[in-house]
């Protein structure tokens, strides 16, 4: 456990000056900031629709969720998984990392958990910023109806679901970047995967949920509540979320075996 903890702290220490770390923070800031700015500067037009509180929150949050689930999230995950491993490939530091008196499993787990933590931070900030900028807009433009509905539950459920649905992509990309030191292979495969995911999810292919890249989109789509129920009452653990978690668990184990069997050049 101590091995894991110090490896994790070291992962943070090493990457705190890298783009992968800052992107987890800056990305939600920019996207939520831009959407809020858009709502602020176009407040007159938004107000014309006379949305009730819940509807306004729905419109407002889906702006971020839409781009996030479809495009930005897969690309951020690819880039981040690449970056966490590339820090060792680029500096040729796998050999020093694995010649420390720490067990290999802890080093590997710390790296994987660190990648998951970065994804969590990014998604958490998206939820937090959507929530707080909504209320900020309300303060700036008192005619908005953000105050009429509290989106805390639905936002945390939606983003929580999105997080779980992205674990599959993260695990695939993590392994690809663990094996290959170059940028193009994991990015190329990830890019093709994302496009495949987008297409299969949008044409509604029966088995699309088996492709990890389509899981975030499918997860958002399956977040509708049955009639007569409150909008928050949708299920988190739908088929595609389970598939994504399963990919996460299986590939995490596979990655460890790849690493232990591999000679470190």
């Amino acid at each position, binding site marked *: 456990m*101590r091995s894991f903890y*110090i*490896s994790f*702290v*070291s992962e943070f*220490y*090493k990457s705190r*000056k*890298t783009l992968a770390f800052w992107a987890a923070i800056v990305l939600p800031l920019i996207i939520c900031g831009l959407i809020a700015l858009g709502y602020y500067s176009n407040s007159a037009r938004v107000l014309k629709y006379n949305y009730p509180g819940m509807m306004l929150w729905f419109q407002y949050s889906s702006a971020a969720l839409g781009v996030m689930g479809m495009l930005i999230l897969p690309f951020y995950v690819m880039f981040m998984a690449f970056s966490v491993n590339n*820090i060792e490939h*680029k*500096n*040729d*530091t796998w*050999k*020093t990392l*694995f*010649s*420390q*008196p*720490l*067990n290999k499993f802890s080093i590997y787990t710390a790296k994987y958990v660190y990648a998951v933590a970065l994804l969590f931070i990014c998604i958490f900030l998206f939820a937090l910023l959507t929530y707080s900028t909504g209320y900020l807009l309300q303060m700036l433009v008192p005619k908005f109806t953000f105050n009429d509905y509290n989106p805390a539950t639905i936002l945390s459920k939606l983003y929580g679901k999105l997080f779980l649905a992205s674990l599959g992509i993260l695990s695939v990309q993590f392994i690809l970047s663990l094996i290959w030191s170059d940028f193009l292979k994991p990015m190329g495969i990830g890019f093709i995967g994302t496009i495949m995911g987008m297409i299969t999810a949008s044409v509604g292919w029966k088995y699309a949920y088996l492709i990890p890249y389509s899981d975030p989109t499918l997860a958002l789509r399956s977040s509708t509540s049955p009639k007569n129920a409150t909008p928050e009452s949708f299920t988190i653990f739908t088929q595609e979320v389970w598939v994504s978690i399963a990919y996460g668990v299986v590939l995490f184990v596979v990655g460890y075996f790849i690493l232990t069997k591999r*000679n*470190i050049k």
Partner: protein
Amino acid sequence: MNTSFAIETVELNHRFGSQTVVKDLSLQVPKGSIYGFLGPNGAGKTTTIKILLNLLQSSSDTVFIFGKELNSNRTACLKQMGSLVEQPAIYAHLTGKENLINRCILLGIDKRKATEMLTLVGLSNAANKKAGKYSLGMKQRLGIALALIADPELLLLDEPTNGLDPNGIIEIRNLMIELAGKHGKTILVSSHLLAEIERIATHVGIINKGELLFQGKINELHDLSKPVIKIEVDDSAAALNILGTTGAEIIDMDEGLVKIAYTGKAEMGKYNSLLVNNGVTVYAIHTEKKDLEHLFLDITSKN
């Protein structure tokens, strides 16, 4: 296993695909020694060091560190080792000091040790400069600081003076002598230059094409290069007979050439007159001493 050895390998083998890079290697590095691990480029030195660090797989019961089997005591063994393998592995986006602090985090040691190490290797002035911007020599120093930071009992240094200027080489050499002499550390230092090792090593292992060709104390290596008398004669068989009666140690003979051990000038003169008086024509007689460099080349070119 013999616990007087810091490192012991027993018929260690390693292959990359179909190519055998380490063959039946039985290293014995005594505790407290500076063991010069010599061999030309591509001889298998780095591979061996990587095996000793468990970076490359080895079969069980072939590698022992302070008497402990490596595969089953990986963490315990690594705790006693500090290493510098090939070019130093340094995070280029972190400063020199941050690289050392990161290592302190991984080893669970006091971060103040980082500053101490920077002073030791003479990098205090460049502590806050990005390591990626360091010169090769500075990187090498940082690599050595990283290897030393945990105060390990055993140091594995793979060509540590690579890229250093003459001053740097002398500093590192003195540092190694101090570490082994005053602090009782064991150092395995690889090099392809015998001259560099000769001055500091107490023990030497010479490897070529994955095979250990010589292993022993440095004086034993010197003994191999004892001077010989080369005598060119018209009849080497007759010369051999005559010299045999004097009790001279015959080292080698060939058509028209006899080599005997050199024992002194007077004896050399005696052999000469004895041969001439007994009717053997002596064309030339002279001493020959191989310097270690030639000896090294001789040893490594044999296999």
